[in-house]
Structures are given as structure tokens and as C-alpha cells.
């Protein structure tokens, strides 16, 4: 019952509302599924069976009283381990935070609790969200439910794999350069990066403040909209939070689900395709574009010339911000403390702790950021990156003058083999080629499954981007494409995942 395409969050919410099941039943089924398959998948770093069942029982009591707190009251969820959860370990996939139990909830987590969603546990991730494969987790990689020898994407591979393996109907991810969308693409699931500032960052352990954004990880576009409406909106605790109402996302999905795209202008970005993209990814992408045209959309080709510099811009801005953010891991107030022999000073303790507590990728990026911010290099690198960021935003503005949404493949390839790019940072960085521009500019984006690549039978994704605060557009077009593809396939893509024994 946890398996099978009918078990969407929206369907579970309907079953709960109609009294045909209980949150305790639903939550227990997902905990059982985790017990059955997570040994293979390793999507979770921590499972809170007791807490989740208590929250489920409380939800059932509310439903029995006719007072559910939200449409999703009682539908369980998994949370990426980068969000602070009061009373539950929060490690960010790092040894430096092993065993840390935050004394407070992130705003996203507080909103989940207030809406009555039982929290199943915390999901695996690349250390401090640095990576595209979840292999940089200090606690071992997550595996792709389509093929256990392959990566589930990253940094939020745990959240995507949990949802793809039916261990959770919903999950929260965070997206700094594609960490929600790229795992969605390679696991055949849906992921949304909201407009920057659309979802509070309070309690989200910062990788790069000006790029980070939390959002939904789900199996359907409707489920993403339902979850987005729960966690989105202004938060006074985050000074970068946008003080405007969240657009009507569920309504946008219902409009899109009719499959009619008449009058919608779809812009295909010249720079996000072609060389470097796997043939099967491009074939499925073109097929999706053709379907949207058949449904009434008008297609225009748009050029965003500065996008060719997006990767370099990102790998200056992100390490610069990360090296500053991670300075707080100083072995004094929380987290790991390693004390060298003799009579070490606080600084000696700091150095030893940071060497022992951080993994290779974190060290690489801290050093790169320290370099980019050094006097003498600042203008040539960081200052220049900030200017190119302006050019990228101008490209988006010009493109959105010609098109309502922009589309591209989400990731240039399907899931690669574990270990294949682990020690080749540049090859790893290229996975985020298509997703990074949205973070640099703050615009919202969704990744929707677009099929299986002919050459390897693995999932591919299409990315749909919209202007800042027009998140409803990515939901409308995403839902339309999802409906058109479902009609073509006859069943959800995930029904064809065969990586897990006895699944789904």
C-alpha cells in the first residue's frame, strides 16, 4: 500500500479526510517500508519511529474531532538533514555535527509540525549540501532506487531517493545550485526550487545564503504544490524572506492538469542543451517540448549568452559564502571538538577539529572561497562573479520578455555510477550546468520526469523556470506536462523502477 502509483500525498490526504485510513496506519506503513528497503537505499540518516507515530496519533485525534490543521494533516514527511529539528539529530551529512541535537526548529519544520505532518526522519545529503551525488556524505552514499549501483543525485539524494523508493510520500529538500531539481531528474521524481525568499531559510544550515532555498520533493506536481503552500510564505525570522502572499499554487496545478497550454509561450534556452548533454536526455526533452506544442503552447528559442559563465560564477560565489558560513564550526559552542596532545590553544583545537570534522569537498570549497576573497584576488574573481551574476539576471529578464517560462533538460546526464566522479570535482560540478542559473538569479524552477533515456533506461528530467514570484507558472506548466506524459505512458514513470527487490 505504500507502493503503487496511487499513493500520492494528495490521495493519502483524501483517504484520511474520508476516514478510510488513519495517520497511524499510513505512518506505520512508511516506517515498515523504511525498515524493509532503507538498508539498500540508505536515504535516511535518522528515523524517528516513535516521534512520528506519536505525531500521527495526535493527527488522528484531530481528525476525529473534525479539526485537522491542514489538508496534509497526518501525511508523513521526510526532512533533509540540513534543517534544524528540535530534539532530532541534525548533522548536515558531516562528522563535525555528529550527534548534534538542535534546541530549536527551522521555520520550515515548525510549519510542517503546525500543519500536522508526522516527521519520519532526516534524509542523507552531501556534506553541507556540497555535491551532486550524495557521495560526499560523511555517513556513506544514498543509492538510486532505479539502480543501486548509481547515484541518486545531490545534494538532496536522500530526500529524492526516499520519495522514489516509497519510503515517504513527501520530503523537504534544499536547492543551492540544483540540489532539489537534479536528484528529482535522476530518480524520476518531482522537485521544486521556489523563488529565492519564498520559503524561509531560518534554521536551514547555510551553505551559500544568497543561493539556498528549501522546497518540495515529491512524486507528483500536485503534491509539491500542496507542500509548498504549507511551508512557503513570509517569515520575520528570515530577513531575506519575501513579504508577499504565496501565489495560488494548487489552483495553478488544477488549471495545468487539464493539459491545455493554449497561449503559453515556452522558451527553449539555446545555451542549456547540445554539447555535454546525453543523447537520450535530449531526445526525451524534445519529446516533452513537442507534447507541449501539441497542447497549444508556442515555442520560441531564446538565447542567454551569459549562462556560459554561470558555472564559473557559481563556483566563486558559493565557496566565498560557504567559507564564511562554515567559519562558525569552531569547536567551541556546539559540534565536534578534537583536542590535540599537549596544551593546545583554542586555535589549535579549531584547526584539528576542522581537519577531522570536514570531508574533502568541504575543504576544497573552503580553501577556494578563502582564495577568492583574498585581497589581490577579490576583484578579479569574487567581484567579477558578482557582476556576471547581474548579466545572468539581465539574460533572464530579456528571455522572460519573449517567453512565459523557460525550459531545458534538468541534468545533462542520467544517474552515473557511484564512485565515477568522486575524485574529479570538475566533472561533478558539470551536473549542475542547467540548474545553477536559476539560483544565481533567484527565479523558481521545477523538475518533472520526462521519461527514460533510450541508451540506459534511466530517468531523465525537464526543468521549467519562471520569473521571480511567478512560482504558479512552473506549477501550471509542470502539471500540464505531467498530465500529457502520463497520458502517453499510461502509468507513472516510477512504476517502471526495478532497482529494489520487491519494489513497488
Amino acid at each position, binding site marked *: 500500500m505504500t507502493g503503487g502509483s496511487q499513493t500520492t500525498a494528495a490521495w493519502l490526504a483524501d483517504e484520511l479526510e474520508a476516514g478510510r485510513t488513519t495517520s497511524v496506519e499510513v505512518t506505520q506503513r512508511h516506517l515498515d517500508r523504511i525498515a524493509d528497503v532503507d538498508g539498500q537505499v540508505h536515504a535516511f540518516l535518522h528515523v524517528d519511529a516513535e516521534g512520528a507515530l506519536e505525531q500521527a496519533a495526535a493527527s488522528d485525534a484531530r481528525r476525529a474531532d473534525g479539526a485537522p490543521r491542514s489538508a496534509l494533516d497526518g501525511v508523513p514527511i521526510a526532512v533533509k538533514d540540513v534543517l534544524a529539528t528540535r530534539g532530532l539529530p541534525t548533522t548536515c551529512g558531516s562528522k563535525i555535527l555528529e550527534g*548534534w*541535537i*538542535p*534546541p*530549536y526548529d527551522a521555520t520550515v519544520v515548525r510549519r510542517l509540525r503546525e500543519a500536522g505532518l508526522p516527521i519520519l526522519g532526516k534524509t542523507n545529503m552531501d556534506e553541507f549540501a556540497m555535491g551532486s551525488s550524495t557521495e560526499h556524505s560523511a555517513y556513506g552514499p544514498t543509492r538510486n532506487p532505479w539502480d543501486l549501483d548509481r547515484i541518486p543525485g545531490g545534494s538532496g539524494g536522500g530526500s529524492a531517493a526516499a520519495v522514489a523508493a516509497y519510503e515517504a510520500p513527501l520530503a523537504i529538500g534544499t536547492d543551492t545550485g540544483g540540489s532539489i531539481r537534479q536528484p528529482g531528474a535522476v530518480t524520476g521524481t518531482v522537485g521544486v526550487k521556489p*523563488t*529565492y*525568499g519564498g520559503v524561509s531559510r531560518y534554521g536551514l544550515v547555510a551553505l551559500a545564503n*544568497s*543561493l539556498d532555498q528549501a522546497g518540495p520533493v515529491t512524486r507528483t506536481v500536485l503534491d509539491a504544490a500542496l507542500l509548498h503552500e504549507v511551508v512557503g510564505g513570509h517569515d*520575520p525570522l528570515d*530577513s*531575506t524572506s*519575501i513579504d508577499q502572499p504565496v501565489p495560488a499554487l494548487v489552483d495553478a496545478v488544477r488549471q495545468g492538469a487539464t493539459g491545455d497550454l493554449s497561449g503559453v509561450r515556452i522558451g527553449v534556452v539555446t545555451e542549456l542543451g547540445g554539447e555535454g548533454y546525453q543523447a537520450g536526455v535530449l531526445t526525451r526533452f524534445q519529446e516533452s517540448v513537442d507534447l507541449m506544442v501539441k497542447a497549444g503552447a508556442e515555442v520560441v528559442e531564446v538565447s542567454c549568452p551569459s549562462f556560459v*559563465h554561470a*558555472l*564559473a560564477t557559481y*563556483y*566563486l560565489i558559493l565557496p566565498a559564502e560557504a567559507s564564511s558560513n562554515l*567559519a562558525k564550526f569552531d*569547536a*567551541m*559552542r*556546539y*559540534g*565536534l*571538538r578534537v583536542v590535540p596532545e599537549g596544551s593546545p*590553544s*583554542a*586555535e*589549535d*583545537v579549531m*584547526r*584539528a577539529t*576542522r*581537519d577531522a570534522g570536514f570531508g*574533502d569537498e568541504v*575543504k*576544497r570549497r*573552503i*580553501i*577556494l572561497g*578563502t*582564495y577568492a576573497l*583574498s585581497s589581490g584576488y577579490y576583484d578579479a*574573481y569574487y*567581484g*567579477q562573479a*558578482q*557582476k*556576471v*551574476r*547581474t548579466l545572468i*539576471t539581465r539574460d533572464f529578464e530579456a528571455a522572460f520578455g519573449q517567453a512565459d517560462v523557460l525550459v531545458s533538460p534538468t541534468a545533462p546526464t542520467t544517474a552515473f555510477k557511484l564512485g565515477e566522479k568522486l*575524485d*574529479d570535482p*570538475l566533472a561533478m560540478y558539470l551536473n549542475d550546468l542547467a540548474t545553477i542559473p536559476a*539560483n544565481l*538569479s*533567484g527565479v523558481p524552477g521545477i523538475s518533472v520526469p520526462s521519461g527514460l533515456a533510450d541508451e540506459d533506461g534511466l530517468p531523465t528530467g525537464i526543468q521549467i523556470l519562471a520569473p521571480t514570484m511567478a512560482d504558479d507558472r512552473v506549477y501550471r506548466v509542470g502539471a500540464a506536462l505531467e498530465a500529457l506524459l502520463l497520458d502517453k505512458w499510461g502509468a507513472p514513470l516510477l512504476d517502471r523502477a526495478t532497482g529494489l527487490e520487491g519494489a513497488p
Partner: protein
Amino acid sequence: MPDTPPTAGGASISREQVAHLADLARIDLSDAELDHLAPQLSVILESIASIQGVAGDDIPPTSHPVPLTNVFRDDVVVPGLTPEEALSGAPEAEQQRFSVPRILGEEQ
């Protein structure tokens, strides 16, 4: 990964530079780690060096995707963490305070 020779544009990073940067970033890197990380950092740096000179002087920098200024909240007291909560993750605590190693070096 092979060693990458320094390029003319200076878009390369030596083992000594990496050691210095690690020192600035308060990370004790072992010799083995320096051998491993320095060439990788050179490759990354070479690839991002292409950004130099892309934007002219007339282009304003962007620090933040959605610029906001003067974000204030009402000046009212709100509950905070208790001392016990604030200290709950401390490696060492004493008398409701964070207990830390000596803060001065031997030479100071």
C-alpha cells in the same frame, strides 16, 4: 589526477598557497591532504579563471537575488533559548558558560 602546470595567467594554485589558505581557514591539512587537494584546486581554478574580464566596469555587482533594504521587526521581547538549551550542544560547559581552551598561543 595529474599535476597541472601553472598557467601564464596565474590561474593556478601552488601547494604552498593551499597550505597558506588552509592556515587562514583554520584547517590543519596533512602533507597527504595537500598533495591530494592542491592539484584538484588548480584544475578548478583554471576552469573558473575564464570569468576574468567578462563583465565591464559599468556592470553593477549583485550580492543578492532579491534586493531588500532596511528589514526591521517590531522592537518587542520574544522568547529565546534557555541557558540550558543554548549550552546543550557545547563540547564543554561550566557555570552556565561555554568552556574553551586557552585563547592565547604559546608565544603570546
